């Protein structure tokens, strides 16, 4: 029994180390791959500049945004006890997208460079406050989903309105491209603007592991185990708003990472929602970095945006997940 128990303790640690190693490898790969050649020593005077100003911000963003999306997906699925939950479900992505689109629409992004990410952050913050106000302080998971759905639908409607009313075709193209999500051509300054918020959000989300484990037994049992569910909900919503809001503000909408990553890793952590949090952080970073490297490899032939790629991968995955859930729920 002791040997078996010890094995159980080592297995999750081993998994996290392996996922961490994969994320580091993907980060280095992301630094090494680009149109100007493979490796960390790009030839020519521009070499160091390319590495520092183009590949480094892209790799850091890939790791942070992927980690934020994977982690918040795992946290929301655990809190809502629903494997189909995703960061966009609480309305934060929609709000962030609306804020950025408005910054373009009103011409603010042409006036000063930070208007776009700042608009995204403001949109995420407003969406979060609205969702919290709508869902109330006593509601359970269902009211949170409904409030998130209401706020995202409203954000989507306003984004369509901004596109509809746009007089300037260049602004329209910019908005549409921004909605597709991309890691390319972000500056280190933009990274430093969003990174502290993403890190703070992820730190909050990593705190709720115990509560999510206890929630496996339902709300009454979790409370009788000494957990404060109101604080858990606040932490999950604030952590998602900070990490996903800041991520979306810089990269645009990148969907489905928060759905696929926790789902793929869940069996490897014995379905424990608490352990799934750090695993999904590392797995999300790895997935987004690798997907971004793959885009750069195929770039000479097709110029795909990462938000489009994750949606192309994610939508069939979602369909498969629905069919699987349907089979499990069938009498």
């Amino acid at each position: 029994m002791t040997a078996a128990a010890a094995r159980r303790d080592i297995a999750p640690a081993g998994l996290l180390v392996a996922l961490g190693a994969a994320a580091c490898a993907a980060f280095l790969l992301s630094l090494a791959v680009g149109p100007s050649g493979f490796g960390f020593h790009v030839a020519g005077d521009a070499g160091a500049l390319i590495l520092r100003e183009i590949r480094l911000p892209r790799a850091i963003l890939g790791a942070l945004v992927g980690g934020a999306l994977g982690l918040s997906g795992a946290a929301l699925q655990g809190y809502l006890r629903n494997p189909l939950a995703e960061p966009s479900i609480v309305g934060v992505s929609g709000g962030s997208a609306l804020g950025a689109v408005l910054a373009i629409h009103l011409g603010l992004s042409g006036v000063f460079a930070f208007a776009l990410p700042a608009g995204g952050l403001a949109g995420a913050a407003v969406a979060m406050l609205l969702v919290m106000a709508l869902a109330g302080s006593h509601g359970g998971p269902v009211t949170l989903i409904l409030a998130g759905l209401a706020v995202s639908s409203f954000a989507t409607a306003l984004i369509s309105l901004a596109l509809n009313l746009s007089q300037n075709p260049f602004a329209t193209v910019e908005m549409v491209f921004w909605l597709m999500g991309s890691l390319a051509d972000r500056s280190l300054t933009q990274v430093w603007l969003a990174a502290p918020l993403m890190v703070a959000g992820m730190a909050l989300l990593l705190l709720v592991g115990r509560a999510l484990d206890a929630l496996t037994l339902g709300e009454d049992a979790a409370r009788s185990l000494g957990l404060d569910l109101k604080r858990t909900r606040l932490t999950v919503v604030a952590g998602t708003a900070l990490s996903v809001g800041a991520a979306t503000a810089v990269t645009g909408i990148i969907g489905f990472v928060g759905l696929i990553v926790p789902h793929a890793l869940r069996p490897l952590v014995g379905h424990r929602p608490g352990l799934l949090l750090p695993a999904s952080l590392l797995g999300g970073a790895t997935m987004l970095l690798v997907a971004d490297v793959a885009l750069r490899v195929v770039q000479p032939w097709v110029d795909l945006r990462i938000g489009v790629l994750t949606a192309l991968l994610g939508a069939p995955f979602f369909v498969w997940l629905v069919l699987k859930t349907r089979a499990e729920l069938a009498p």
Partner: protein
Amino acid sequence: MRIAARGLCASLKAREVLSDVDVGAEAGEITAIIGPNGAGKTTLLKVLAGLIAPHAGTASLAGRPMAEWRPQALARALAYLPQERTVHWALTARAVVALGRLPHQPMGAGESAADMRAIDAALAAMDVAHLAARPVLDMSGGERARVLVARALAQEPRALLADEPAAGLDPAHQLALFRHFTVLAAEGRTVMVALHDLSLAARFCHRIVLMHAGRAVAAGTPADVLTVEHLARVYGIKAHYAVLDGVPVVVPLDLLPGVLP
């Protein structure tokens, strides 16, 4: 630890579910709460577990009102086993039982030797040690119910409140469950169970509280409470009380006229 409540009134969605309930459960005893469906047994247990705040009256554990207990300290002293047996993820039985150790583990700490001992003892007590590595969602209802009881036992509480723990268990495991409750009581713990099986209540419980329409209409020893008159008035049944081989049994014989359509 003594559980006591005075003048409890509680409402669910503006409907009064408990009215002026006085109950007590002593350390070293098993106290049963019996009564028909909708009598308020579950709500009473939830109030006594500190999960629902009564709008009048007080509930206390070891002389301290529930509201004054810090959640973590309360969780180390008292375990609550809900009637609902939903498990949301495909955790193994051992992982589910290990959740009972959460109140004893500092944040970020792994399982201590004491945790592992408590988990193994709880799995063995509920006869689910052989299922430890199986996902609970693949188990039968009765097996899952035993795993969930083991979760509450692993909490090593001074007071255990269990809502219909025997429902869905086969007769052998029902007996084993109540034998174990007897052991817990003999160790000086307080055990309180909501029950429908009147024979189990008569045989194993030291005290019985009979609930009817949100009120505690009788309380005392099984012989005081399980009378023909009480069972007729509260359940609307004609019941037979007998002693077979020294074991008390209560058998419902018939519905009284005009009780159910």
